């Protein structure tokens, strides 16, 4: 079991309103042995999963069919679940409170997202 993926068996929430992008993320996460929660396309679905599911990390698209994902980010932070935005917006276009949040820029390459999510989670030191 050495050389295990840092995302192995981690429960990762994916909130992304574009089907093809969501599927690409899902595929990349599965390839890294993660357990994908979602993907879901709406704020409402995202909030529901963020509140009810055991989670290790999350990837959040900022613009969900015109709605903003900030509320999901706040719920996750309240639960100490680390998250990253996956968005086409630059930092300056985000509200001040989220400008220093981790961001993966669209268009993205799968391995960069995987690395970014890995970096969110502190190494629990597998004994």
């Amino acid at each position, binding site marked *: 079991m050495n050389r295990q993926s840092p995302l192995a068996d981690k429960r990762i929430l994916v909130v992304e309103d574009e089907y093809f992008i969501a599927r690409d993320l899902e595929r990349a996460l599965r390839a890294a042995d993660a357990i994908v929660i979602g993907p879901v*396309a709406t704020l409402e679905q995202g909030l529901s999963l963020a509140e009810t599911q055991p989670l290790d990390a999350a990837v959040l698209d900022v613009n969900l069919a015109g709605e903003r994902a900030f509320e999901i980010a706040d719920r996750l932070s309240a639960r100490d679940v680390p998250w990253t935005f996956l*968005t086409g917006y630059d930092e300056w276009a985000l509200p001040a409170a989220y400008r220093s949040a981790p961001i993966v820029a669209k268009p993205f390459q799968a391995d960069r997202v995987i690395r970014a999510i890995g970096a969110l989670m502190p190494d629990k030191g597998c004994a």
Partner: protein
Amino acid sequence: MTDLASLYGQKTLTVPSTGPGPHDAHVLAGINRILQEALRASTEEELGRLCLEVAEDLTGAAFSFFGERRESHDRLDHIAISERGWAAYHGSDPVFAQRQLPNGFNIHGIFGQVILQDRSLIVNDPANHPNRVGTPKGHPPLHNFLGVPLRRDGETFAMFALGNHPTGFTERERAIAEELAPAIVQALLRKRAEVASRASQRRLLTLIEGIPQLVWTATRNGQWTWVSPQWVAMTGLSVEESLGHGWLAAVHPDDRDAARRYWEGAGEHGDLAMEGRLRHGQTGRYRWFKTRATPVRDDHGRIVEWFGTSTDIDTLRRLRERQETLVAELQHRVRNILTIVRSIFTRTVENGGPIDEIADHFRGRLDSLARTQVVATQTRSGRVDLENLIRDELLGVGAIEDDRLLIEGPDVALPADTAESLGLAIHELTTNALKYGALRHSGGRLTITWQIEPTSNSECELIVKWDETGVPAMPVPPVRQGFGTELIREALPYGLGARTRLDFRGGGVLCVITLPLMSDDADAPNRSTEG
């Protein structure tokens, strides 16, 4: 009264041995009157008439005038003609009836000698005086004359002259007139400065109250000492309410700390500038203002007060914010669509096949996305007409609307993201029909219809039906496992919340796409996205 004392304090010590002197109570009263009236007169002419009246009263002259040398020194203009003078002229010439002061006199004749020789002059026999030039038309006959020069900084710049004493002028009258002269100069110059200052103040006030900025003055710690009418009109706060720190009431609560800090830093350094919101008194709405203040310094360079303006930048700021939003949205859209294109490319390649077929598929999908993008960005609303979307797709592959092709439905304006996915689905169906279905076989028919069904509340559904008939039964078409199938069966439900049905029946494809729509999407192709 201090002027009087400083002017005459010296002279009262030197009492002339003969004739009336400055100790004469009547003369002092006259001087006093001139200096007092100077404050009240509204024009130089009015002041001049008053001075002449005092001089006539004290000397017993019948009329008088008060004139000033022009800057060029060669001509004399009238400052005033006494009331008695006007009365004596009255009726002889209509010009005098209008009391127009005669100007531009040559400096010559008897009166000219007062200026040219720079001394007072008594002429009791003017008819035989060597310098006599006669009197102007309408002038009453001149029997005798007393002229006195008026000096400023030791130079004669003006004169006044008295005429027609009942018995002729003596040294007594000359002494009185000479005593009056400094007071007349003093009164004239003071009035002149006052009029100039008043005009300058009026100009300044007109400027301050005419500019579109809110203007105010403040002491060093932000205590306001004056506000312009524009401030009162904008904020609805009265002058009294605004003074001191009262102006803070018009500042947005969130900006008050910044405004206070602004003044804390207003120590010895230069100009101040900040942006903040001020409450519009009538509407209660806050507007953004840019406030600047410049220190007013005394002769030692110390700041005496601050002179400030607040400029309305609300519209500018809103435009700037809107521009930032537009740029952000544009970035979002461009990067999102690139991500989608990338994903579609990957899938198209993964589905396999000969390279030129893969290229055709990808090109077709890219063209479909591009068409929708072009239409969506052509209208201000960013919306796309459903019928045009379908027609463009079919015309793009050369299909002709005839008895084998029917396209029919009400006007529907789709949001850009919906149009993008739906357009791609229509593209996949069209490509399939062209390759295997109704658009390939001569007996095939294609009917594309749509309708809007109300569901609950303000919601409604758009139901698009793609119905092929007359296609010979054939084995499983590739679309069944491909990109198009995934798009219709999974992507549309995922991204648009649609319900879809895709059947490969004998006779052709039947596809029904039902997607939720805001009720105002129907019949509103030009709806604005704002508001």
